[in-house]
Structure formats: C-alpha cells, structure tokens
C-alpha cells in the first residue's frame, strides 16, 4: 500500500468514526429510553403532567417551555442581529468601528453560558420582577421571558455572523445597479440586499434556533424550574434541557431516569431536524449563488 492509499483510508476511518459516534449516541438514547417508551407509550407526548412521585411523565410542558423560550428569544434577537449584520456588511465593512463590533460579537459567543446565567440571575431577574409588578402578574422574576432574554443575547453572534456573510455575497453588481437608478442606501438594503439575502438569513435563524433549543446552563438558572404547562410568557417553566439538568441527579427510580432519557431523545431529534433544515437551506443557497454569478 502506498502512502496515498493509507492517507485516504485514515481519512475514511476518521469520517466514519464521526458518523458512528452520532449513530451510537442516538442508539444509546433510544436503548435507555426504551423502558419509558414501553411503560408510558403515547402518554409521553399527549399528557400534561410531569410528576415523578405519581410516576406521571409527559414531555408536553417542557416541549412547550422549550419552544416558547426559543421562539421568543429568536424574535427578540432578530432585529439586533440584522442591525449588526447590516452595520458590519454595509456601513462599516472596514475601519476601527467595524472591526471592534465584529470582535465583540464574536467574543459574545465565547462567554461561558454559566456566566450568562449569573448575569441573568442577578441583573435580569430583578428587572423582570419590576416589570411584572407593573403588569400585575405574579412577580417570580425567573420565567420564560427572562430565559428568552438571556437566550436572545446568547444567539445574537450566530444569527448576525451568518446574516453578515450572506449579505456580503449579495453581488456588488446588483447593489450598484440599484444605486445607479437613484435608490438610497435604505432602499438598496430594503429592496435588494434583504430580498437577496433572505434565504441565507432564514438559514441563520434556523441554526440559531437549534442552538437555543439545546442551551442548558443559562436557561436552567433563570427559567424558574416549574414542571407545569406555562400559562403566559412570564410563567416559570422548564425546557427539555433544563429539566434534564435539574432532575438527573435525583432520579432514583428507573422509570424516572428512563423518562428523562426519552426527553433527551426528543430534544436530539428536534435539534437534529432543525439543524438539518438550516444546512439544507444554506447548501441550496450556495448552489443558487453560483448560478447567479
């Protein structure tokens, strides 16, 4: 065997190993959640109650908590992410201001999530409590809204960097054509850049969504840890990830543990699907982009 073949084999093995790892993770989740799947059946996806004492286990309150916090976080972060992306791609692509903002958004992605949790707990919780008193709802402070705020800040770097990249690849030709027809910068952004970048931006949103769904530490610290179906966006709740983190150590019964693992399986499937969709859109965009050029 020559060196070329050995190298190729090594690469194949490494690639295969990753695929195997993913398959095994999925398989072990499936295997360990089997007792719960067998005992709970469809009740796991249909019921409303999660009570380890009475052995009622339903994923619905956590699925609701997860989706609510993630979607809310996306909505809150989107205007900021787009603004940052436009700032960096259209207004200050070079120079000190652009570079500084660019570094800072990237740094935001590097902050450990427990620190975001602390910041949420000591800064946002009291703030949200004041807001809740004003609105006349029970002032828990911790809850879905607070978790969404923390998550929103955490996903800004992801949405903004992907949006920035797709805005940068909007062909210069098109922007100049619009300028040459007498369009203002705002009109160029609104009618040329955003429509051209739309599918890329939505892919960025999906990938950030995938990340928000699985975020554990920061959310666990500020969501209020309640196992009931949330009544409104200020209700304390739990996400799939946060309930696993909270209850894993105290799950003494086999069925409790197995139900938690089944929750993990559910989260795995959801995030996998969301990420897959995001990558699919990006891939399609890359092909279309080539056709345009």
């Amino acid at each position: 065997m020559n060196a070329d073949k050995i190298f190729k084999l090594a690469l194949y093995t490494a690639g295969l190993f990753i695929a195997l790892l993913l398959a095994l993770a999925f398989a072990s989740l499936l295997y360990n959640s089997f007792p719960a799947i067998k005992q709970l059946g469809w009740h796991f996806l249909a019921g409303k109650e999660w009570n380890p004492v009475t052995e009622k286990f339903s994923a619905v309150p956590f699925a609701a908590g997860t989706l609510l916090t993630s979607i809310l976080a996306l909505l809150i972060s989107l205007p900021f992410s787009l603004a940052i992306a436009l700032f960096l791609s259209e207004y200050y692509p070079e120079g000190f201001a652009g570079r500084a903002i660019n570094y800072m958004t990237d740094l935001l992605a590097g902050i450990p999530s427990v620190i975001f949790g602390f910041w949420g707990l000591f800064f946002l919780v009291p703030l949200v409590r004041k807001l809740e008193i004003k609105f006349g709802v029970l002032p828990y402070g911790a809850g879905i809204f607070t978790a969404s705020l923390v998550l929103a800040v955490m996903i800004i770097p992801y949405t903004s960097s992907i949006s920035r990249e797709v805005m940068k690849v909007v062909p210069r030709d098109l922007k100049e054509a619009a300028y040459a027809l007498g369009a203002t910068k705002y009109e160029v952004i609104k009618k040329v850049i955003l429509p051209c970048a739309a599918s890329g931006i939505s892919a960025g949103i999906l990938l950030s969504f995938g990340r928000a769904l699985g975020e554990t530490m920061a959310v666990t610290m500020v969501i209020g840890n309640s196992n009931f179906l949330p009544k409104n966006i200020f209700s304390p709740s739990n996400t799939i990830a946060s309930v696993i983190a909270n209850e894993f150590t105290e799950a003494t019964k086999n069925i409790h543990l197995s139900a938690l693992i089944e929750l993990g399986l559910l989260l795995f499937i959801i995030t996998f699907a969301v990420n897959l969709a995001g990558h699919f859109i990006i891939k399609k965009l890359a092909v279309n982009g080539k056709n345009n050029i």
Partner: protein
Amino acid sequence: MENKILEIKNFYAGFGKKWILRNINLAIYKNKVTAVMGPSGCGKTTLVRCINRLHEISPQAVYKGDILLDEKSIFSVQPVKLRRKVGMVFQRPNPFPAMNIYDNVISGYILNGIKLSRREKDRIVEESLKRAYLWKEVKNELFKKGTFLSGGQQQRLCIARALAVEPEILLMDEPASALDPTATLKIEELIQGLKKKYTIIIVTHNMQQAARISDYTAFLMLGELVEYDETNRMFTRPSKKVTEDYITGRFG
C-alpha cells in the same frame, strides 16, 4: 456649434492617497456619442463612475475638481437626484434576479418608492423596451424572470431599465464586452438610435467599436487625458504620437 451638456474641470479621482485620474478637462456634447477609450487601468471606468457619483460609494474614494451638468456642479445636488438624470449600464448585464422583466424595467420607480398607475406602468414598460429594441422579443413573456433571457437580451433589458427613468445622459461601461458579436452589433445599432434622445458616454477598450459608433473620442492613458477630439479626426489625423501608436496597435 455644439451644445455642451457636461463639463469636467480639473478633475482628479482615486482611492485613498492614490489618484487614478489626474487633471481631466473634457466637455461632453448633447445628443452625441462620446467614447472613452484607453488601455486597461487607465481610469476609463472611474471617470464614468464619477459622472453619476457612483465612485463615492466605494470605500476610501476621493475626488477633487468639478463636474458641471447643465452648468451646475453635480456635487451640489443629491447623488440620488443626479443618478436619475444620469443613467448607467454596466459591464456585465445585471437585471434584478428576483424581479420579472416588467418589474425590472420599472425598477427605478419601484426602488424609489414611486407609485404609478397600471396604465402608466404599461406605457413606460412598452416604450422603454421598444427603445431598447427588446419589445418584440419579450412582449409575450413580460412576467418571466429577467435572468432567463440571453446575455445580450439581459443587457438590453438593463438599457431599458436605465431609459425608463428618463435620464439625460446614459453612461455605458463596456456594455458589450461580455457579449458575443451578434449581440454586440445589436447594442451598437441601439446606441446609434438612442443618441437622438440621449447623450451617451461609452467606455470601451475596443478601438473599432469607438470608431464605429462614436462622434467624439477621449483617449486616456495612465489616468491622464491624452487627446480628445472628433472621432473621425482622431482616427485619421491624431495630434499626438501616443494616440497614433495606440490606434495603430503598436501597444495596448
């Protein structure tokens, strides 16, 4: 006596600390075709991009001197307003990919948020496409995407788009360089027809093209205006040795 529409006076333009154009003095005459030619990198494109102030949107763009349109400095009007009087056609056809042919033609109005009645729109679309010699080919598929057209048709669509906003001057930056000979011929014919109504400034590195279609020719080299004269005279009796060398193909 010819009518001056545009006058470039002691004009410099460049990026950062580097001047690409130096001390350009040039008068453009109304309803004439003026060709700007010269070897690559001589500043032809930069010159026309200054006339509609598109040069300024590039980072680090700088300029000094003045350009007068109808005896008024273009730097005293808003770029947005200037660009509606000075249309531009680019080197590569660039119709808006998300718009159909119809919307591409009136995109100048769409982009500027100007509302038109259906009848006005129809009229502008038909008239502009006719002026760009494209009407017959596309009148039955106005609502198809413009990117399905051939390269030459796309370029004529871009010309129609520029004409739709009724400019006085049409800048063309090597409009035929990405096209095959047949499409090029069509564009050249079109330019001849357009000069009745518009003043055309066309950048070309193709001397035969300049000789064929233009009334006046400006010859630029290394950022300076070497010679500017009526095309006939320049191609038969150039006053400078460099011009003669260039047009006889000794370099460039």
